[in-house]
Protein backbone atom coordinates (compact mmCIF):
# COMPACT_ATOMS: atom_id res chain seq x y z
CA UNK A 1 0.00 0.00 0.00
CA UNK A 2 1.32 3.40 -0.89
CA UNK A 3 0.99 6.59 1.18
CA UNK A 4 -1.26 9.48 0.21
CA UNK A 5 0.47 11.96 -2.10
CA UNK A 6 0.05 14.98 0.18
CA UNK A 7 2.07 17.33 -2.00
CA UNK A 8 -0.20 16.56 -4.93
CA UNK A 9 -3.26 17.18 -2.76
CA UNK A 10 -1.92 20.49 -1.48
CA UNK A 11 -1.18 21.60 -5.01
CA UNK A 12 -4.63 20.56 -6.19
CA UNK A 13 -6.51 22.71 -3.67
CA UNK A 14 -5.88 26.12 -5.31
CA UNK A 15 -6.54 24.65 -8.76
CA UNK A 16 -9.92 23.27 -7.72
CA UNK A 17 -10.85 26.35 -5.71
CA UNK A 18 -10.69 28.24 -9.01
CA UNK A 19 -13.78 26.30 -10.07
CA UNK A 20 -15.69 26.98 -6.86
CA UNK A 21 -17.22 30.27 -8.10
CA UNK A 22 -18.84 28.46 -11.03
CA UNK A 23 -20.24 25.77 -8.73
CA UNK A 24 -21.56 28.27 -6.22
CA UNK A 25 -22.80 30.55 -9.00
CA UNK A 26 -24.87 27.79 -10.56
CA UNK A 27 -26.27 26.85 -7.15
CA UNK A 28 -27.08 30.47 -6.26
CA UNK A 29 -28.76 31.14 -9.61
CA UNK A 30 -30.66 27.88 -9.33
CA UNK A 31 -31.74 28.69 -5.78
CA UNK A 32 -33.02 32.16 -6.63
CA UNK A 33 -34.96 30.95 -9.68
CA UNK A 34 -36.25 27.88 -7.82
CA UNK A 35 -37.45 30.02 -4.89
CA UNK A 36 -39.39 32.36 -7.17
CA UNK A 37 -40.92 29.48 -9.09
CA UNK A 38 -41.67 27.54 -5.88
CA UNK A 39 -43.43 30.53 -4.29
CA UNK A 40 -45.57 30.88 -7.40
CA UNK A 41 -46.41 27.17 -7.41
CA UNK A 42 -47.16 27.19 -3.67
CA UNK A 43 -49.50 30.19 -3.95
CA UNK A 44 -51.28 28.53 -6.88
CA UNK A 45 -51.68 25.34 -4.85
CA UNK A 46 -52.87 27.15 -1.72
CA UNK A 47 -55.40 29.34 -3.53
CA UNK A 48 -56.59 26.34 -5.58
CA UNK A 49 -56.76 28.33 -8.79
CA UNK A 50 -58.61 26.17 -11.32
CA UNK A 51 -56.53 24.65 -14.15
CA UNK A 52 -53.34 26.24 -12.81
CA UNK A 53 -53.64 24.10 -9.68
CA UNK A 54 -53.89 20.95 -11.79
CA UNK A 55 -50.92 22.07 -13.86
CA UNK A 56 -48.88 22.82 -10.74
CA UNK A 57 -49.73 19.40 -9.32
CA UNK A 58 -48.59 17.68 -12.51
CA UNK A 59 -45.40 19.75 -12.62
CA UNK A 60 -44.54 18.93 -9.01
CA UNK A 61 -45.36 15.28 -9.49
CA UNK A 62 -43.09 14.96 -12.55
CA UNK A 63 -40.09 16.86 -11.19
CA UNK A 64 -40.21 15.10 -7.83
CA UNK A 65 -40.87 11.76 -9.44
CA UNK A 66 -37.87 11.60 -11.78
CA UNK A 67 -34.13 11.72 -11.08
CA UNK A 68 -32.34 15.04 -11.54
CA UNK A 69 -29.80 13.36 -13.83
CA UNK A 70 -32.57 12.12 -16.13
CA UNK A 71 -34.06 15.63 -16.21
CA UNK A 72 -30.69 17.18 -17.07
CA UNK A 73 -30.15 14.74 -19.93
CA UNK A 74 -33.69 15.37 -21.11
CA UNK A 75 -33.07 19.13 -21.32
CA UNK A 76 -29.55 19.10 -22.61
CA UNK A 77 -29.46 16.15 -24.96
CA UNK A 78 -33.15 15.50 -25.58
CA UNK A 79 -35.07 18.74 -26.01
CA UNK A 80 -32.88 20.33 -28.74
CA UNK A 81 -34.08 17.49 -30.96
CA UNK A 82 -37.48 19.19 -31.06
CA UNK A 83 -36.82 22.77 -30.01
CA UNK A 84 -34.29 24.18 -32.41
CA UNK A 85 -33.50 27.22 -30.28
CA UNK A 86 -32.19 24.95 -27.53
CA UNK A 87 -29.44 23.56 -29.76
CA UNK A 88 -27.19 26.37 -28.64
CA UNK A 89 -28.00 25.89 -24.92
CA UNK A 90 -24.82 25.51 -22.93
CA UNK A 91 -24.25 23.10 -20.10
CA UNK A 92 -24.26 25.77 -17.41
CA UNK A 93 -27.64 27.15 -18.48
CA UNK A 94 -29.07 23.65 -18.79
CA UNK A 95 -27.83 22.81 -15.29
CA UNK A 96 -29.35 25.96 -13.77
CA UNK A 97 -32.61 25.19 -15.56
CA UNK A 98 -32.60 21.60 -14.35
CA UNK A 99 -31.78 22.56 -10.76
CA UNK A 100 -34.48 25.24 -10.83
CA UNK A 101 -37.25 22.96 -12.07
CA UNK A 102 -36.23 19.98 -9.96
CA UNK A 103 -35.80 21.77 -6.66
CA UNK A 104 -38.73 24.15 -7.14
CA UNK A 105 -40.99 21.10 -7.10
CA UNK A 106 -39.71 20.08 -3.67
CA UNK A 107 -39.57 23.61 -2.33
CA UNK A 108 -43.11 24.39 -3.50
CA UNK A 109 -44.41 21.63 -1.27
CA UNK A 110 -42.56 22.86 1.83
CA UNK A 111 -43.62 26.45 1.18
CA UNK A 112 -47.21 25.30 0.69
CA UNK A 113 -47.10 23.41 3.98
CA UNK A 114 -45.63 26.46 5.71
CA UNK A 115 -48.36 28.72 4.32
CA UNK A 116 -51.19 26.39 5.34
CA UNK A 117 -49.60 26.11 8.78
CA UNK A 118 -50.00 29.84 9.51
CA UNK A 119 -52.93 30.38 11.87
CA UNK A 120 -56.17 31.40 10.19
CA UNK A 121 -56.51 34.33 12.59
CA UNK A 122 -53.56 36.04 10.87
CA UNK A 123 -55.46 36.10 7.59
CA UNK A 124 -58.63 37.30 9.29
CA UNK A 125 -56.78 40.07 11.09
CA UNK A 126 -55.31 41.24 7.79
CA UNK A 127 -58.70 41.11 6.09
CA UNK A 128 -60.32 42.94 8.97
CA UNK A 129 -58.11 45.98 8.43
CA UNK A 130 -59.04 46.00 4.75
CA UNK A 131 -56.01 44.38 3.15
CA UNK A 132 -56.56 42.69 -0.20
CA UNK A 133 -55.80 39.00 -0.61
CA UNK A 134 -52.55 39.80 -2.41
CA UNK A 135 -51.46 42.24 0.33
CA UNK A 136 -52.34 39.69 2.99
CA UNK A 137 -50.26 37.04 1.26
CA UNK A 138 -47.28 39.32 0.65
CA UNK A 139 -47.13 41.20 3.94
CA UNK A 140 -48.58 38.83 6.52
CA UNK A 141 -48.58 35.20 5.39
CA UNK A 142 -45.41 34.80 3.32
CA UNK A 143 -43.08 36.50 5.84
CA UNK A 144 -44.32 34.17 8.56
CA UNK A 145 -44.24 31.14 6.28
CA UNK A 146 -40.63 32.02 5.39
CA UNK A 147 -39.59 31.48 8.96
CA UNK A 148 -41.30 28.10 9.09
CA UNK A 149 -39.92 26.98 5.73
CA UNK A 150 -36.35 28.26 6.12
CA UNK A 151 -34.74 25.17 7.70
CA UNK A 152 -36.15 22.93 4.97
CA UNK A 153 -35.30 25.37 2.19
CA UNK A 154 -31.73 25.66 3.43
CA UNK A 155 -31.47 21.89 3.30
CA UNK A 156 -32.57 22.00 -0.32
CA UNK A 157 -29.98 24.68 -1.01
CA UNK A 158 -27.28 22.45 0.45
CA UNK A 159 -28.54 19.58 -1.63
CA UNK A 160 -28.51 21.86 -4.68
CA UNK A 161 -24.88 22.84 -4.18
CA UNK A 162 -23.91 19.19 -4.16
CA UNK A 163 -26.17 18.47 -7.13
CA UNK A 164 -24.27 20.98 -9.30
CA UNK A 165 -21.65 18.24 -9.54
CA UNK A 166 -23.97 16.53 -12.05
CA UNK A 167 -23.16 19.35 -14.47
CA UNK A 168 -19.96 17.53 -15.36
CA UNK A 169 -22.10 14.96 -17.16
CA UNK A 170 -23.16 17.79 -19.49
CA UNK A 171 -19.52 18.61 -20.16
CA UNK A 172 -19.32 21.54 -17.78
CA UNK A 173 -15.93 21.90 -16.13
CA UNK A 174 -17.06 22.87 -12.66
CA UNK A 175 -15.62 21.61 -9.39
CA UNK A 176 -16.41 17.94 -10.07
CA UNK A 177 -15.56 18.13 -13.77
CA UNK A 178 -12.21 19.72 -13.02
CA UNK A 179 -11.42 17.08 -10.41
CA UNK A 180 -12.28 14.35 -12.87
CA UNK A 181 -9.84 15.81 -15.41
CA UNK A 182 -7.08 16.28 -12.87
CA UNK A 183 -7.52 12.73 -11.60
CA UNK A 184 -7.50 11.28 -15.09
CA UNK A 185 -4.16 12.91 -15.91
CA UNK A 186 -2.42 12.16 -12.59
CA UNK A 187 -3.99 8.75 -11.93
CA UNK A 188 -4.20 9.87 -8.28
CA UNK A 189 -7.96 9.28 -8.10
CA UNK A 190 -8.24 8.86 -4.38
CA UNK A 191 -6.29 12.03 -3.59
CA UNK A 192 -8.19 14.11 -6.13
CA UNK A 193 -11.66 13.00 -5.08
CA UNK A 194 -10.77 13.26 -1.42
CA UNK A 195 -9.76 16.88 -1.93
CA UNK A 196 -12.97 17.72 -3.76
CA UNK A 197 -15.06 15.91 -1.15
CA UNK A 198 -13.49 18.01 1.60
CA UNK A 199 -14.09 21.22 -0.40
CA UNK A 200 -17.80 20.40 -0.77
CA UNK A 201 -17.93 19.48 2.90
CA UNK A 202 -16.40 22.78 4.07
CA UNK A 203 -18.72 24.79 1.83
CA UNK A 204 -21.75 22.99 3.25
CA UNK A 205 -20.54 23.43 6.82
CA UNK A 206 -20.07 27.15 6.25
CA UNK A 207 -23.58 27.32 4.91
CA UNK A 208 -24.98 25.41 7.89
CA UNK A 209 -23.40 28.02 10.12
CA UNK A 210 -25.12 30.78 8.13
CA UNK A 211 -28.36 28.81 8.39
CA UNK A 212 -28.16 28.81 12.18
CA UNK A 213 -27.58 32.57 12.25
CA UNK A 214 -30.46 33.15 9.84
CA UNK A 215 -32.88 31.00 11.83
CA UNK A 216 -31.93 32.80 15.00
CA UNK A 217 -32.69 36.11 13.31
CA UNK A 218 -36.01 34.89 11.96
CA UNK A 219 -37.00 33.60 15.38
CA UNK A 220 -36.36 36.95 17.00
CA UNK A 221 -40.06 37.89 16.93
CA UNK A 222 -41.01 34.69 18.73
CA UNK A 223 -38.80 34.94 21.82
CA UNK A 224 -40.65 35.37 25.05
Amino acid at each position, binding site marked *: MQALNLDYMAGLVPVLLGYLPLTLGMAAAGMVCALILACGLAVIRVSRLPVLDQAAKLFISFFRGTPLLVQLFLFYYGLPQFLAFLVSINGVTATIMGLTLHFSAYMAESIRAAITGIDRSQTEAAQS*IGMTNAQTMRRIILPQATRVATPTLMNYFIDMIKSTSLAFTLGVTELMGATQKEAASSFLYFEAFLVVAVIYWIVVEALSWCQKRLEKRLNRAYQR
Partner: protein
Amino acid sequence: MIALKGITKRFGEHTVLDGIDLSLERGEIIVVIGPSGTGKSTLLRCINFLEHPDAGELTVGDLHVDAARPGKDDILGLRRRTAFVFQNYALFAHKTALENIAERMIVVEGLSKNEAHARAREILERIGLADKADAYPAALSGGQQQRIGIGRAMAAKAEVILFDEPTSALDPEWVEEVLALMKQLAAEQQTMIVVTHEMQFAREVADQVVFMDGGRIVEQAPPSELFTNPKDERTRSFLRKVLSGNAPAAT
Protein backbone atom coordinates in the same frame (compact mmCIF):
# COMPACT_ATOMS: atom_id res chain seq x y z
CA MET B 1 -74.50 55.49 10.81
CA ILE B 2 -74.62 51.70 10.82
CA ALA B 3 -77.70 49.79 9.75
CA LEU B 4 -78.30 46.06 9.38
CA LYS B 5 -81.47 44.82 7.75
CA GLY B 6 -82.58 41.20 7.64
CA ILE B 7 -79.06 39.80 8.01
CA THR B 8 -79.31 36.04 7.65
CA LYS B 9 -76.57 33.47 7.84
CA ARG B 10 -76.81 29.73 7.46
CA PHE B 11 -74.11 27.13 8.04
CA GLY B 12 -75.46 24.24 5.99
CA GLU B 13 -78.90 23.40 7.37
CA HIS B 14 -78.39 25.43 10.52
CA THR B 15 -79.62 29.02 10.53
CA VAL B 16 -77.22 30.96 12.74
CA LEU B 17 -78.65 34.41 12.10
CA ASP B 18 -82.31 34.74 11.31
CA GLY B 19 -83.05 38.16 9.92
CA ILE B 20 -81.19 40.54 12.21
CA ASP B 21 -82.18 44.21 12.16
CA LEU B 22 -79.98 46.61 14.06
CA SER B 23 -78.97 50.20 13.71
CA LEU B 24 -76.81 52.62 15.58
CA GLU B 25 -75.92 56.27 15.32
CA ARG B 26 -72.45 57.74 15.38
CA GLY B 27 -71.03 57.59 18.89
CA GLU B 28 -73.53 55.00 20.02
CA ILE B 29 -72.43 51.90 21.89
CA ILE B 30 -74.31 48.65 21.59
CA VAL B 31 -73.48 45.67 23.75
CA VAL B 32 -74.69 42.29 22.53
CA ILE B 33 -75.28 39.61 25.14
CA GLY B 34 -76.79 36.15 25.08
CA PRO B 35 -76.05 32.45 25.53
CA SER B 36 -73.13 30.83 23.68
CA GLY B 37 -73.85 29.68 20.16
CA THR B 38 -76.62 32.16 19.46
CA GLY B 39 -74.79 33.89 16.65
CA LYS B 40 -73.38 36.93 18.45
CA SER B 41 -69.89 36.52 17.03
CA THR B 42 -71.24 35.52 13.64
CA LEU B 43 -73.26 38.74 13.59
CA LEU B 44 -70.12 40.82 14.16
CA ARG B 45 -68.21 38.82 11.56
CA CYS B 46 -70.99 39.38 9.03
CA ILE B 47 -70.69 43.14 9.39
CA ASN B 48 -67.17 43.12 7.93
CA PHE B 49 -67.63 40.00 5.80
CA LEU B 50 -65.27 37.73 7.70
CA GLU B 51 -68.42 35.65 7.28
CA HIS B 52 -70.56 36.18 4.20
CA PRO B 53 -74.22 36.66 5.08
CA ASP B 54 -76.70 34.75 2.91
CA ALA B 55 -79.21 37.58 2.82
CA GLY B 56 -79.82 41.08 4.10
CA GLU B 57 -78.56 44.60 3.66
CA LEU B 58 -75.72 46.42 5.32
CA THR B 59 -75.12 50.14 5.55
CA VAL B 60 -71.93 51.47 7.06
CA GLY B 61 -71.42 55.20 6.67
CA ASP B 62 -71.90 56.07 3.01
CA LEU B 63 -71.66 52.48 1.81
CA HIS B 64 -74.75 50.39 1.20
CA VAL B 65 -74.28 46.70 0.41
CA ASP B 66 -76.65 43.97 -0.66
CA ALA B 67 -75.22 41.24 1.55
CA ALA B 68 -76.31 38.43 -0.74
CA ARG B 69 -74.53 39.85 -3.77
CA PRO B 70 -71.55 41.88 -2.61
CA GLY B 71 -68.99 43.11 -5.10
CA LYS B 72 -65.29 42.84 -4.34
CA ASP B 73 -65.21 46.59 -3.69
CA ASP B 74 -68.18 46.30 -1.33
CA ILE B 75 -66.37 43.78 0.85
CA LEU B 76 -63.17 45.79 0.90
CA GLY B 77 -65.20 48.95 1.51
CA LEU B 78 -66.99 47.45 4.49
CA ARG B 79 -63.73 46.20 5.95
CA ARG B 80 -62.13 49.60 5.53
CA ARG B 81 -65.04 51.34 7.26
CA THR B 82 -65.04 48.95 10.21
CA ALA B 83 -62.41 47.65 12.60
CA PHE B 84 -62.37 44.37 14.47
CA VAL B 85 -61.01 43.33 17.84
CA PHE B 86 -60.56 39.58 18.10
CA GLN B 87 -61.10 37.35 21.08
CA ASN B 88 -57.62 35.85 20.64
CA TYR B 89 -56.05 39.27 19.78
CA ALA B 90 -54.77 37.99 16.40
CA LEU B 91 -51.83 40.36 16.36
CA PHE B 92 -49.46 39.94 13.42
CA ALA B 93 -46.93 37.62 15.05
CA HIS B 94 -43.96 38.80 12.99
CA LYS B 95 -44.55 42.49 13.59
CA THR B 96 -43.78 44.65 16.61
CA ALA B 97 -46.51 46.40 18.58
CA LEU B 98 -45.77 49.58 16.63
CA GLU B 99 -45.82 47.80 13.27
CA ASN B 100 -49.08 46.06 14.12
CA ILE B 101 -50.74 49.43 14.60
CA ALA B 102 -49.00 51.09 11.64
CA GLU B 103 -49.67 48.29 9.15
CA ARG B 104 -53.10 49.48 8.04
CA MET B 105 -51.96 53.07 7.62
CA ILE B 106 -49.12 51.95 5.36
CA VAL B 107 -50.98 49.38 3.30
CA VAL B 108 -54.51 50.75 3.13
CA GLU B 109 -54.03 54.50 3.52
CA GLY B 110 -50.69 54.58 1.70
CA LEU B 111 -48.92 56.66 4.34
CA SER B 112 -45.14 56.68 4.39
CA LYS B 113 -43.55 54.38 6.93
CA ASN B 114 -42.29 57.35 8.95
CA GLU B 115 -45.64 59.04 9.12
CA ALA B 116 -47.46 55.81 9.93
CA HIS B 117 -45.00 55.04 12.70
CA ALA B 118 -45.36 58.53 14.13
CA ARG B 119 -49.13 58.15 14.26
CA ALA B 120 -48.86 54.63 15.66
CA ARG B 121 -46.68 56.05 18.44
CA GLU B 122 -49.46 58.51 19.32
CA ILE B 123 -51.88 55.60 19.58
CA LEU B 124 -49.43 53.67 21.75
CA GLU B 125 -49.34 56.70 24.07
CA ARG B 126 -53.12 56.74 24.25
CA ILE B 127 -53.32 53.06 25.13
CA GLY B 128 -50.49 53.41 27.63
CA LEU B 129 -48.03 51.10 25.91
CA ALA B 130 -45.52 53.58 24.48
CA ASP B 131 -42.70 51.65 26.13
CA LYS B 132 -43.68 48.46 24.28
CA ALA B 133 -43.40 49.92 20.77
CA ASP B 134 -40.66 47.52 19.70
CA ALA B 135 -41.91 44.45 21.54
CA TYR B 136 -43.21 41.48 19.57
CA PRO B 137 -46.58 39.98 20.53
CA ALA B 138 -44.96 36.84 21.95
CA ALA B 139 -43.22 38.97 24.57
CA LEU B 140 -46.41 40.74 25.72
CA SER B 141 -49.02 39.71 28.29
CA GLY B 142 -52.52 38.85 27.13
CA GLY B 143 -53.82 42.17 28.37
CA GLN B 144 -51.09 44.09 26.57
CA GLN B 145 -51.69 42.13 23.37
CA GLN B 146 -55.38 42.90 23.47
CA ARG B 147 -54.70 46.58 24.08
CA ILE B 148 -52.46 46.55 20.99
CA GLY B 149 -55.31 44.80 19.19
CA ILE B 150 -57.59 47.65 20.20
CA GLY B 151 -54.88 50.14 19.18
CA ARG B 152 -54.76 48.51 15.75
CA ALA B 153 -58.53 48.97 15.50
CA MET B 154 -58.25 52.59 16.65
CA ALA B 155 -55.73 53.27 13.89
CA ALA B 156 -58.42 52.46 11.34
CA LYS B 157 -60.45 55.52 12.35
CA ALA B 158 -63.37 53.30 11.43
CA GLU B 159 -67.07 54.15 11.50
CA VAL B 160 -67.45 51.41 14.06
CA ILE B 161 -65.20 49.10 16.07
CA LEU B 162 -66.51 45.58 16.43
CA PHE B 163 -65.38 43.82 19.63
CA ASP B 164 -65.73 40.03 19.61
CA GLU B 165 -65.55 38.92 23.25
CA PRO B 166 -62.38 40.96 23.77
CA THR B 167 -61.79 39.77 27.34
CA SER B 168 -62.92 36.14 27.13
CA ALA B 169 -59.47 34.73 26.38
CA LEU B 170 -57.74 36.80 29.05
CA ASP B 171 -56.52 35.69 32.44
CA PRO B 172 -58.69 37.46 35.05
CA GLU B 173 -55.80 39.72 36.06
CA TRP B 174 -55.73 41.38 32.60
CA VAL B 175 -59.47 41.89 32.09
CA GLU B 176 -59.69 45.19 33.93
CA GLU B 177 -57.03 47.02 31.89
CA VAL B 178 -58.73 46.04 28.65
CA LEU B 179 -62.16 47.08 29.87
CA ALA B 180 -60.67 50.36 31.11
CA LEU B 181 -59.32 51.09 27.63
CA MET B 182 -62.71 50.29 26.10
CA LYS B 183 -64.37 52.68 28.56
CA GLN B 184 -61.84 55.32 27.59
CA LEU B 185 -62.86 54.84 23.94
CA ALA B 186 -66.51 54.99 24.91
CA ALA B 187 -65.88 58.30 26.65
CA GLU B 188 -64.36 59.56 23.40
CA GLN B 189 -67.63 58.81 21.61
CA GLN B 190 -66.22 55.92 19.56
CA THR B 191 -69.05 53.99 17.90
CA MET B 192 -68.84 50.36 18.94
CA ILE B 193 -70.63 47.06 18.91
CA VAL B 194 -69.37 44.84 21.71
CA VAL B 195 -70.10 41.16 22.17
CA THR B 196 -69.23 40.32 25.75
CA HIS B 197 -70.14 38.44 28.89
CA GLU B 198 -69.03 41.38 31.06
CA MET B 199 -72.43 42.46 32.34
CA GLN B 200 -71.01 45.19 34.51
CA PHE B 201 -69.37 46.74 31.45
CA ALA B 202 -72.65 46.53 29.55
CA ARG B 203 -74.46 48.22 32.40
CA GLU B 204 -71.94 51.05 32.67
CA VAL B 205 -71.07 51.76 29.08
CA ALA B 206 -73.81 50.60 26.71
CA ASP B 207 -76.39 52.94 25.22
CA GLN B 208 -78.37 49.92 24.11
CA VAL B 209 -78.12 46.31 25.19
CA VAL B 210 -79.18 43.66 22.71
CA PHE B 211 -80.14 40.22 23.97
CA MET B 212 -79.79 37.51 21.32
CA ASP B 213 -81.01 33.94 21.42
CA GLY B 214 -81.35 31.34 18.67
CA GLY B 215 -80.07 33.65 15.94
CA ARG B 216 -82.61 36.37 16.68
CA ILE B 217 -82.70 39.59 18.61
CA VAL B 218 -85.08 38.85 21.48
CA GLU B 219 -84.96 42.16 23.21
CA GLN B 220 -83.21 45.50 22.87
CA ALA B 221 -83.26 48.26 25.46
CA PRO B 222 -81.05 50.67 27.37
CA PRO B 223 -79.18 48.81 30.12
CA SER B 224 -81.15 50.47 32.91
CA GLU B 225 -84.27 48.95 31.45
CA LEU B 226 -83.01 45.61 30.17
CA PHE B 227 -81.16 44.65 33.32
CA THR B 228 -83.85 45.75 35.79
CA ASN B 229 -86.99 45.04 33.87
CA PRO B 230 -86.41 42.47 31.11
CA LYS B 231 -89.60 41.81 29.17
CA ASP B 232 -88.92 38.41 27.67
CA GLU B 233 -88.73 35.24 29.74
CA ARG B 234 -85.57 34.14 27.85
CA THR B 235 -83.82 37.37 28.80
CA ARG B 236 -84.86 36.96 32.44
CA SER B 237 -83.67 33.39 32.55
CA PHE B 238 -80.32 34.30 30.94
CA LEU B 239 -79.74 37.23 33.27
CA ARG B 240 -80.60 35.12 36.31
CA LYS B 241 -77.93 32.62 35.26
CA VAL B 242 -75.13 35.08 34.50
CA LEU B 243 -75.84 37.46 37.36
CA SER B 244 -76.27 34.84 40.09
CA GLY B 245 -72.47 34.63 40.29
CA ASN B 246 -72.12 38.31 41.22
CA ALA B 247 -75.33 39.13 43.03
CA PRO B 248 -74.36 42.57 44.36
CA ALA B 249 -73.92 43.86 40.84
CA ALA B 250 -77.40 42.69 39.95
CA THR B 251 -79.20 45.08 42.24
